């Protein structure tokens, strides 16, 4: 079974890309789909009705969706395997743009929208840097010059990333993504799958429910405004 992890900001077109992947492989391969979102998601119902494939969803609620994804991934792999899936697609809502849900032995796909502004790739870090493929959607809507600059900035964050530009609703240009999926090896050993990067620290006192503002009311990683250009970098 092949594992594809699709991430990206809301409304970038993750599900439109997923739809095109399913449409392409439908009939030749068994596909299972898992959506991880925060409060509401409809993609699982839509895709199940449209393509008659097994789908599942998980709401992370107050937990980061990527943390949730990691917690449930082992179970989800077992679920997809029991269904004799050839391709298992996990779509994760990327919210803080700092996370990166990609694991080893998978194809990590980040979906970015060309209309989100030319500096957008620079604001995302690991969500792009640790992905294998960047699918840039809605390129039909922006000028040539913005398209070129967006691509450059994406390359700046991840020089080796494979960039696929598309109008995902029509599926133009996605042949290169399909090719990467075809070339993707099956998962070798579930037990040895790990996260590719370290997610942002999630254990400050705000995380555990303290609501007071100001550093004086908290402990753990503490910084004042002065000199707080970058609050915390993992070791």
């Amino acid at each position: 079974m092949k594992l594809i992890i699709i991430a990206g900001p809301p409304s970038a077109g993750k599900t439109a890309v997923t739809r095109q992947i399913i449409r392409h492989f439908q009939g030749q391969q068994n596909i299972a789909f898992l959506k991880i979102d925060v409060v509401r998601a409809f993609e699982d119902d839509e895709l199940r009705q449209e393509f008659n494939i097994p789908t599942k969803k998980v709401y992370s609620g107050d937990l980061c969706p990527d943390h949730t994804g990691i917690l449930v991934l082992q179970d989800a792999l077992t679920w997809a395997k029991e269904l004799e899936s050839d391709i298992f697609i996990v779509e994760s809502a990327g919210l803080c743009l700092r996370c990166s849900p990609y694991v080893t032995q998978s194809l990590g796909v980040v979906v970015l929208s060309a209309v989100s502004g030319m500096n957008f790739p620079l604001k995302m870090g690991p969500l792009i840097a640790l992905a294998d493929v960047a699918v840039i959607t809605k390129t039909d809507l922006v000028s040539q010059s913005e398209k070129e600059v967006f691509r450059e900035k994406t390359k700046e964050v991840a020089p080796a990333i494979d960039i696929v530009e598309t109008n995902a609703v029509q599926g133009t240009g996605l042949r290169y993504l399909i090719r990467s999926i075809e070339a993707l090896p099956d998962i070798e050993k579930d037990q040895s799958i790990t996260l590719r990067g370290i997610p942002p620290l999630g254990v400050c006192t705000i995380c555990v429910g303290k609501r007071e503002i100001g550093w004086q009311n908290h402990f753990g990683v503490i910084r004042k405004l002065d000199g707080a250009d970058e609050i915390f970098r993992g070791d």
Partner: protein
Amino acid sequence: MSSCPIREITVLPGHDKQGNPERFDRIVIRPGDTISIVGPTGSGKTALINDIELFAQNDTATGRIVLVNDEVPAEEFIRDPSKKPIALITQNTKCLADMTVEAFLAMHVRARKISSPTIIAETVCLANRFTGEQILPGCRITALSGGQTRSLMIADAILISNAPLILLDEVENAGIFRERVIEVLKEHCKSVIFVTHDPLISLLSDRRIVMRHGGVEKVLYPEGREQHTREMIARMDLTLCRFRERIRAGELLTEQGSPQ
């Protein structure tokens, strides 16, 4: 500009929506060619230019194949927009960046690593030949009208992108000087394909590709036989233009009899 390595782009037939093979051998596009794609809504006009823009290799819904100089083009040619020999400008194409015209063009010039110190001024100047509303280098991109934006994008495609083939999807709605666009594209030895419903653009083109049910139905080569009609339509167009300007200027049009 003449160092461009592209001699021709060739479209090989696929099939229409019912799966019937298209009835043409090949459509060859060479520098300086002006081609119109016409046909009813839903007949496959946009799908045809999308195939050309993507260099389809029997991997789109139409099954067409598009070659450069009779060969499958190198992948980097297709995938990297800065190396791609085609610029596509559609009705939906927008400049979203909130910056001045000058800064916007400078950004593109930098991305292309062009060193000419005058290219930005030349591009603005060329854009101004296409539009009646003057574009100033200090204007903000987001404040430009539809016609100004379209004009600027076409000028950018000609001078900064230096794309040998330009695809224009229904530009007539944008209020630009269409004949001048065609003239300048020819001057710069660019090929252009219009998807159009506009009689003047259709008749100003050397060739007309007629679409039906998702496939190419035929290719017309008027070769001067439409000269008379073309001149008539050009006159009518001019008349309409004048009326349009007068309406925009707030006049009441009270002429008696039929206007000339």
